[in-house]
């Protein structure tokens, strides 16, 4: 463990920790709404659709079109292309998905979860298919699924921080409106709020966070952050503000523990280790709650 702590002083590990903490804090906060709005699989589908957008940046016919375009904006080297265009593509695909998922009429003729499931399955399959056409496809596919936190660049952290700040400001400024529209959209409409527009804005903040985060953390970890810490917090607290605080705290603790274990001699992959730590916190909270319940009885 001493070796792990000493590795924490290494620049690349510190960068990984910073990036993962940023993703954890944002996702765990938004995840509370994701769970309460019962749209857990929208989060997963958004992540997959964003990943498909990122993957398309490596699809030869699309890359052939995007390379000169990216060069015009200053991404002249392959490295610059790989660290900018996939994010932009993920962002564009996220916007399309957000516009689609935030439609209130969605699910009028078909079950909503079936449509979301279809988008999830379709995007996952297409991502794998698109990446298989690229010489380094399997490597990119692994990065898209598990993320490559240890390979994070300072530019990625800056982007995450900027996107995170924007999302946080929007969430803080319009917190009460988001709660009202999520809790009771019909009453919100009678009060004069255009529920569909507020929904769209909320989905946009979620989409921005996912599109930026999956580039760093991968779809599995982002999805885990959206679900596990919020569920743990909801199990423990019965007050919204405390749930949000605990969710962020659990996300951060799981991240710190996951990074520490990952760089220890155990040498485990970082994202799955963080997910495992989140599950461990959830199980601990559940056990503690059960024991407390038994004592009361």
């Amino acid at each position: 463990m001493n070796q792990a702590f000493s590795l924490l002083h290494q620049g690349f590990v510190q960068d990984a920790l910073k990036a993962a903490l940023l993703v954890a804090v944002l996702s765990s906060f938004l995840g509370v709404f994701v769970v309460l709005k019962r749209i857990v699989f929208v989060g997963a589908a958004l992540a997959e659709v964003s990943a498909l957008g990122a993957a398309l940046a490596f699809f030869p016919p699309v890359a052939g079109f995007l390379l000169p375009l990216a060069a015009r904006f200053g991404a002249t080297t392959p490295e610059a292309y790989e660290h900018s265009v996939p994010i932009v593509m993920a962002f564009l695909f996220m916007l399309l998905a957000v516009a689609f998922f935030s439609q209130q009429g969605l699910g009028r003729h078909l079950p909503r979860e079936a449509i979301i499931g279809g988008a999830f399955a379709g995007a996952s399959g297409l991502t794998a298919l698109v990446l298989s056409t690229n010489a380094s496809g399997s490597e990119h596919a692994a990065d898209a699924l598990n993320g490559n936190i240890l390979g994070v660049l300072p530019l990625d952290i800056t982007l995450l921080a900027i996107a995170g700040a924007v999302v946080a400001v929007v969430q803080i400024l319009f917190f009460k409106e988001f709660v009202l529209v999520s809790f009771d959209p019909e009453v919100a409409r009678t009060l004069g709020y255009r529920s569909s527009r507020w929904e769209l804005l909320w989905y946009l903040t979620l989409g921005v966070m996912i599109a930026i985060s999956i580039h760093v953390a991968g779809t599995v970890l982002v999805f885990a952050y959206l679900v596990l810490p919020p569920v743990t917090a909801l199990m423990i607290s019965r007050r919204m503000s405390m749930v949000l605080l605990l969710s962020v705290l659990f996300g951060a603790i799981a991240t710190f523990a996951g990074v520490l274990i990952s760089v220890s001699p155990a040498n485990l992959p970082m994202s799955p280790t963080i997910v495992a730590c989140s599950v461990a916190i959830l199980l601990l909270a559940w056990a503690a709650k059960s024991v407390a319940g038994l004592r009361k009885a």
Partner: protein
Amino acid sequence: MSALIEFQNAQLGYGWRSIILHDVNLTINRGDFLGIVGPNGSGKTTLLKTLLALLKPVSGTVRFGDGPPLRYGYVPQRDTVDTLFPIPVEEIVLMGRYKRVGLIKRPAKADREIALRSMEQVGIGHLARASYRDLSGGQKQRALIARALATEPDVLVLDEPTNGMDLVSEHALIELASTLHEKNRLTVILVSHLLANVANCAQRIAIIANGALDVGPREELLTTEHLSRLYAMEVKVMDIDGRCAIITGSKHP
């Protein structure tokens, strides 16, 4: 008496191909207590959405007062409100103030006082800090009514407020609606699928039957002859200790 909401020859529905209610003529005056009754699927929700200005009439006109936009105190069906959210009652009641508070700002002390007063009015002042999801059905309904009152509404609209309630809670809630109407001089619209629910509290009743709206004062509408004709079955209206009781019999051949 000034008309708050006025329907004139309105066809209500979701486009020309799905008109649910035909030729609706209805005037709701300030201070009215209107009961809207109709079986499930008769078009109550369509009428309600139009009343709340959430749905435009397919044809005809619907006017909403002459002054500023009406403030609705809308109490939705309790089952449509998600109980997963960990929100205390006080915060839910405060939601009724959000539009007045405005964007970005937080509710002020005055808003919290109005919210507390609304809770006390409906008898749940002591539950301010309780979590909404831990309340009983009747308490939840009162919390939603308190939220509607916190908007300081022009019209209080209650959608099936007694659904799923026991006899005592049902009676208490109807009494509460009557008290709010009388003491606060509130305009109240109560929607129910049960005629008995509105028979003893509403001054005017609108019955939806066969795609049309039959509106009139309670005394005119709630008669054995009228209801038997309207429902095409034997319906007896009786006066028991000053309260209206409605009993159904066999269907007309």
